[in-house]
């Protein structure tokens, strides 16, 4: 089951990146020449992939950081190091821009507002995704006894099919001439198309939730599937009701997978720009839309680089704070 195993990989990617377990004990004495030779061979096999990843992931990120210290004026790219782009992002102004009652006393408030908005939209989408996918994962882990592989394939197919098309399909559903509007009109329930369906933040959140839901089910399912069924029986034998048993055993033991799933949805959706571009309209733009715009339309790559870096830092800090707040390290330690 590719999806299943993929989810394992995904889960470990998120969890080990933040909380490193104590290193495994070395296979033998360090001086043993056989061990050293074997390790060298191992690193030799690993080298091509690792070098490639380093060149294509680490170096470009360093280049992006470097570029964020350059400045662009018109068609001139000034390669001297300065903090101008970062200053621009936080430069204060006497004129305060208000957004949903929140004051932004900034000269260039767009990035700050879009950042906050993206975080809020992603958070809502992530909560929706977890709320919707947890029961489904629970169903697959505990209710499905036959044809389990079939259910997993059913969940996996959308996970692998074009993200672009999944997002686009919501434009067909919600559009001015879309399925809902034309369907309601054909049934005679409305005269004029409902305009509030598409091109707003709600449409973006619904679409994001739908597009990422398959991503979340698999990690949750894996963690539910791993739960020792004897524990559940023991809880029942000792007099727990089904509800009590769920809250005392199932939910805590599936927490690592659920947390991993929520991060797997939250982190990439903050930076998404396909969804806002297709169903967001002017009101549904997100921080990714700004990055794309700065790079490809406004020809201000250095500022775009600075916005991307700040976005990554804010996401990283929030994720670490979240993991720290819920005591994720302890949670994992208890499992193993």
């Amino acid at each position, binding site marked *: 089951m590719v999806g299943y195993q993929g989810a394992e990989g995904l889960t470990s*990617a998120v969890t080990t990146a933040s909380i490193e377990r104590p290193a495994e004990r070395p296979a033998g004495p360090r001086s043993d020449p056989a061990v050293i030779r074997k390790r060298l061979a191992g690193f030799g096999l690993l080298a091509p992939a690792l070098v490639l990843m380093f060149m294509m992931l680490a170096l470009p990120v360093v280049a992006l950081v470097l570029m964020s210290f350059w400045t662009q004026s018109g068609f001139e790219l000034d390669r001297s190091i300065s903090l101008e782009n970062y200053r621009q992002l936080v430069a204060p102004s006497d004129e305060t821009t208000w957004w949903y009652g929140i004051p932004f006393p900034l000269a260039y408030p767009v990035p700050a507002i879009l950042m906050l908005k993206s975080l809020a939209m992603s958070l809502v989408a992530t909560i929706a995704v977890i709320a919707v996918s947890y029961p489904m994962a629970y169903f697959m882990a505990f209710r499905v006894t036959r044809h389990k592989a079939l259910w997993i394939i059913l969940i996996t197919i959308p996970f*692998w099919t074009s993200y672009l098309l999944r997002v686009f399909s919501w434009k067909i559903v919600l559009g001015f001439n879309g399925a809902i509007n034309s369907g309601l009109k054909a049934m005679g329930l409305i005269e004029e198309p409902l305009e509030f369906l598409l091109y707003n933040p709600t449409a973006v959140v619904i679409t994001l939730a*739908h597009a990422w839901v398959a991503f979340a089910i698999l990690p949750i399912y894996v963690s539910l599937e791993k739960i020792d069924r004897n524990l559940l029986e023991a809880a029942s034998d000792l007099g727990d009701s089904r509800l009590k048993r769920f809250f005392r055993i199932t939910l805590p033991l599936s927490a690592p997978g659920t947390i991993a799933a929520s991060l797997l949805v939250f982190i990439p959706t903050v930076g998404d720009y396909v969804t806002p571009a297709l169903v967001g309209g002017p009101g549904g733009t997100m921080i990714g839309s700004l990055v794309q715009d700065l790079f490809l339309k406004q020809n201000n790559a250095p500022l775009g680089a600075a916005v991307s870096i700040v976005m990554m830092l804010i996401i990283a800090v929030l994720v670490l704070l979240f993991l720290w707040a819920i005591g994720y390290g302890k949670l994992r330690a208890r499992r193993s």
Partner: protein
Amino acid sequence: MLRRPDFLWVYAIVFIAFLYGPVLLMPLFSLNDGNFATFPLKGFTLRHYSSMAANTSMILALENSLKIAVVVSVVSTGLGIPAALALTRFRLPGSRSIVSFMMLPLVIPSIVMGVALLVIILKFLGIQLSLWTVAAGHILICLPYCMSVLMSRLEGFDPSLEEASRDLGCNAWQTFVRVTLPLAMPGVISSLLMGFIISFDEFVIAFFLTGTENTLPVYLYSQLRFPNKLPGTLALGSLILLVSAVLVVVAEIIRKRGVQSGNPGDL
């Protein structure tokens, strides 16, 4: 057959409908004899599909996407096999951190990877954007998936088979070719298929890194803006969905076969 109505069963069916419903509207409207994606349906037609054959820019984009996807899936699997072997068969110090590093592309927003690659390619290396730069970006995002498929397959069978082969006089290479590779074959094939699908469907990185030539998703995106192109877009989208779904199912079946038979180590 029907027991007492179970809330979770009802939920699961509603969920699957929610998951597939919007996407399945695409093939539905692509077969509809009308120029808008609207109800009521007007009648069955295949004309949106037959007119695709004459669309040369689409065919060109399709060819580009196929070329990239083949290169990407072969290269990522080729790099993934030795790396997965190293991480599963050799007890390397720091292997957990190495795995975490290699899985990073899964949790970084693709727009960040897209712009970072764009910056280094254009401003630091001075390379022209082309289909090759798209392929390079795709290898980066496919490698973690290929690695996890391959690693789980390699962990799935008994390493004592490989030890037996060495005890019987095979060297490391012979053991790999005669024992490890045949046993890992289901994983290798699904890694190839997964790499192919991911690259074939990928849009964001391709959008940033492509030069003058389009890949199919980039072409599709450019068509979405034109309402009069909608039926053709729906037809193309439906075909892409169909191909991806078939490939996923094939990949899963091959893997399952591999687990059930041909795996004496699993006993």
